[in-house]
């Protein structure tokens, strides 16, 4: 029963201090506007879950709202490091964060198990790596072949936040292009908020379109351009320059903080 709300209302209703929150979107459709709204509303002590932390989580981590990070790849894709992510882990600035680190295959299977409401997923992975000692895993034996595989625990975030191209007035959501783990994130979570580029009268079926029915979504908020500097295929384009620019501005704590104050907390869109 998706309610159509403003972005401010959606975040206020669904996200509480201390929650585990998955803002997903694999390179594509990253919910920047919603993440910024979390900051403006002063949410704190969050467990942030995301396969690819990217710039949005660099910003959230740099602003100190994350107590824990669940992830599998924390880089600025094609550019280099996430400097705020590094600073938090290397120097505890502005605070230390706990890590729950996995591989992509592990995270994807954890979301899929959550979406199926299974307590775990079975996969081949992690074997022989040092990651196996840090990730939460367990061996599991195939009862038919005797092969030993790996079990990973399901992810069940308190809240999923994803961005999509459009929703209809009932709150049915359609996204197309790279689908990532957005559907799994919504289905795995207790509550969900979807921001969309536009609300339309009727969804027009698209090639590659994935429709998520309104009755598994709590709230839908219109947020045009809400995935920038990431993109919404067919509507906005990835701002690759911003990804390069971020490499500079985020290197320095003060420059970062000033930029966030001016462009995010000052309620001007990130750009």
């Amino acid at each position, binding site marked *: 029963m998706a309610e159509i709300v403003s972005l401010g209302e959606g975040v206020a209703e669904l996200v509480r201090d201390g929650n585990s929150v998955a803002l997903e979107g694999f390179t594509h459709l990253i919910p920047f506007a919603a993440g910024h709204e979390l900051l403006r509303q002063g949410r704190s002590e969050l467990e942030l879950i995301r396969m690819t932390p990217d710039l949005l989580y660099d910003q959230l981590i740099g602003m100190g709202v994350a107590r824990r990070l669940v992830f599998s790849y924390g*880089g600025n894709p094609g550019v280099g490091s996430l400097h705020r992510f590094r600073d938090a*882990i290397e120097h505890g600035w502005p605070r230390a964060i706990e890590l729950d680190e996995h591989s992509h*295959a592990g995270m994807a299977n954890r979301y899929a198990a959550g979406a199926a409401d299974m307590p775990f997923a079975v996969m081949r992975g992690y*074997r022989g790596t040092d990651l196996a000692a840090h990730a939460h895993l367990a061996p599991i034996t195939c009862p038919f072949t005797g092969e030993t595989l790996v079990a990973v625990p399901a992810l069940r975030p308190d809240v999923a936040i994803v961005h999509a191209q459009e929703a209809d007035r009932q709150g049915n959501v359609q996204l197309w*292009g790279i*689908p*990532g783990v957005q559907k799994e994130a919504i289905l795995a979570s207790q509550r969900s908020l979807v921001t969309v580029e536009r609300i339309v009268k009727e969804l027009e079926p698209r090639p590659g379109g994935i429709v998520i029915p309104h009755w598994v979504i709590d709230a839908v908020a219109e947020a045009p351009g809400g995935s920038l500097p990431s993109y919404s295929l067919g509507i906005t384009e990835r701002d690759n320059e911003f990804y390069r620019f971020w490499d500079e501005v985020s290197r320095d704590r003060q420059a970062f903080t000033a930029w966030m104050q001016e462009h995010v907390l000052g309620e001007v869109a990130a750009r």
Partner: protein
Amino acid sequence: MSTVSAPSSAEVQTVVAARRLRDVRTVFIGVGRPSTAAILARMVHNPELVLVYESGTIGAKPFHIPLSIGDGELAQTADAVVSVPEMFNYWISPGRIDVAFLGAAQVDRFANLNSTVIGDYEHPRTRLPGAGGAPEIAASCGEVVVVAPHSKRTFVAKLDFLTTVGHGDGPGARELLGFRGRGPTAVITDLGVLEPDPETCELRLTTVHEGVEPDQVREATGWELALAPEIAITPPPSDDELAALRELVSR
């Protein structure tokens, strides 16, 4: 008679990586130089080459070099676009991809890779991005080609963290772990090509790029790098290869 200016060592590295894809059906690629090499391979050597990115795009035909593995052009030109769980469970893990191109911050003598931390995991000197898809990609794809810059910082005697298993601790290690693919078959650097010794699995220098001396490569390597009985010299990039690469980069 070439009218093209001499190739840089990075260009040679990319061209050599692209040549590796001549007779390959499917290649799995991350961003950066591997992506450039794979697109170049499609332009010059193997127009039917299927590019698979972990963002879920199968058969992408990018005209530009993508900055990220999820650029819009990849989805728009792909034969199929699948979810990330499907990509790993139905496509990568069952070993459907012939070759995977991987990068790393550290490579050891058995082509094991570190992309997690420099220093201690709990108190790292440098925190790197992390595993991404690499551990399962390297375990499952038909073979792995590592693309990395050659320096003692990268080619180390001991990894600070073992993110991705190459040949483990040597012969039989992959079999013991139940891995599917053959593991790393080459490490392509800006100085030459290292390939595992068929007996010991240890990387040895098999090829140097034009103008590079084997000793120069050994000095840039953090362990006593073995040399193959005969060391080949990389045939220099042809005019076609170089022109295509430069045209691609300039798009």
